[in-house]
């Protein structure tokens, strides 16, 4: 008897041809950074995949991650990706509200206990018993702990859920924490980024459906297929870095020639993400292609790492002033520079430094 709950059956019912499905799988292979030749194998696995229940909880967040997903230019997200999952609760997207909405979450947790995927965006406030963010009168912490119990796996979508993000930036008034700090007994996959690349979110879901397991993760719990290399590794401007050709300001000859943005504060060398190849807005480009350096938004604590416009290799103090002192003080200068830099870094960690005009013009 034919299984009526498989993706193949649902697509056939909708009149989608096998050729269309193969095209979709080719796009999926590209999404998941798999060799294009694997498309037929993906098609065979996906065709028999059953729709897992998905519960999506949004906590301390800006809804940018959901905006990212719903603006996804991956193959007809609206029809096919949502055909692949059963999104049983998402308080921004669902039509139901109030008690009906909460009941759908409770029903899904009960009916699919141990089998559903829990997607979380936003960090979780823990200070003062988590009172700073509540849904239907319950704290985010309470909702997370309850939903996590019956989850097969948890996907932390966005830098807030993965690493704490903006809510956890100093001075962290709500005691915000990432999912991985609070849930220790479930597999957690971190899809970091502010927001994450939409096709990376769908690619991870497709991987789970195709292979029935989570993809290989790096030491920060991110899928290696998308976070295995740095922006710098895959940047089309990388050859200019190797040639020592750098833009010094945003409007100089180097900037116009498309040279490397390292000296303008690009965080590409320390940032693991797929922006340089997957790109944004349907493949139109990514920040460096638009002439701005990478902010490093997919790395932990990027809000507290100093100015976006300070080169990675530069000390965080005014070198010029200290170098003047060095001429007078001789060998003591190195000690002064080091001590000043350490003090500035400590200060930055304690209070989030605001961007000034000077940061940009230097």
């Amino acid at each position, binding site marked *: 008897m034919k299984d009526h709950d498989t993706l193949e059956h649902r697509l056939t019912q909708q009149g989608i041809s096998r050729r*269309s499905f193969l095209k979709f799988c080719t796009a999926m292979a590209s999404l998941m950074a798999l*060799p294009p*030749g694997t498309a037929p194998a993906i098609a065979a696995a996906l065709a028999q995949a059953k729709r897992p229940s998905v519960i999506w909880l949004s906590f301390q967040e800006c809804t940018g991650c959901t905006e990212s997903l719903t603006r996804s230019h991956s193959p007809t997200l609206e029809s096919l990706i949502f055909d692949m999952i059963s999104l049983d609760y998402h308080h921004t997207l669902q039509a139901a509200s109030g008690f009906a909405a909460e009941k759908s979450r409770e029903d899904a947790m009960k009916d699919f206990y141990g089998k559903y995927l829990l997607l979380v965006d936003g960090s979780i406030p823990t200070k003062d018993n988590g009172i700073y963010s509540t849904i239907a009168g319950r704290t985010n912490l309470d909702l997370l702990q309850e939903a996590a119990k019956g989850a097969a796996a948890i996907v932390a979508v966005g830098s807030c859920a993965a690493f704490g993000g903006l809510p956890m930036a100093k001075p962290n008034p709500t005691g915000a924490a990432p999912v991985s700090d609070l849930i220790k007994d479930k597999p957690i996959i971190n899809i970091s980024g502010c927001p994450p690349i939409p096709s990376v979110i769908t690619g991870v879901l497709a991987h789970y459906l195709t292979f029935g397991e989570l993809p290989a993760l790096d030491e920060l719990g991110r899928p290696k297929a998308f976070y295995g290399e740095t922006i710098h590794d895959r940047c*089309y401007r990388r050859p200019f870095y190797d040639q020592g050709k750098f833009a010094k300001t945003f409007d100089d000859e180097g900037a116009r020639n498309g040279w490397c943005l390292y000296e303008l504060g690009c965080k590409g060398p320390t940032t693991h993400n797929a922006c340089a*190849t997957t790109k944004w807005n349907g493949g139109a480009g990514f920040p460096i292609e638009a002439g701005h350096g990478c902010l490093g938004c997919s790395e932990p604590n990027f809000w507290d790492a100093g100015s976006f416009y300070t080169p990675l290799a530069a000390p965080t103090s005014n070198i010029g002033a200290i170098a003047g002192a060095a001429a007078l003080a001789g060998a003591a200068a190195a000690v002064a520079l080091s001590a000043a830099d350490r003090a500035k870094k400590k200060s930055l960690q304690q209070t989030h430094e605001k961007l000034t005009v000077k940061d940009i013009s230097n």
Partner: protein
Amino acid sequence: MTLQDIAVKVERADDYSVGNISALLAEIATLLEKFIATGQSAEIDLKSLPMGALEYEQLRLALGQGEVAANLEAIGPSEIIETKYPGVWWVTHYNVEGDIVADLIEIANCPAILTSQPQDMQAGLARLQAAIEK
């Protein structure tokens, strides 16, 4: 209007080069040589390669267009072009919004996506027989 409708002015395409395209052309030549010798087809996912807009245009100019061009309409359009080097195909899949979802160089006699699928043929046969019986 889609992003692809916004005109892009390509400047200094001839003298802008960081070497990525020549490396890619060498890889294509190697794969074509292997296909001629062994019949083993191959694919290159262009979306996985770091290319700027200028380099992408350079690749298009370098490969050119050959004798065959086909269009597909399957959950969005697809363009299949045989380049000026027979056996080297450029396959671009779009979604219904007109955005590129897969961009491949295929080394083959004919790209796999063009061939009729057994399941589709079976369904088509059933429709044809039903039409005859009417």
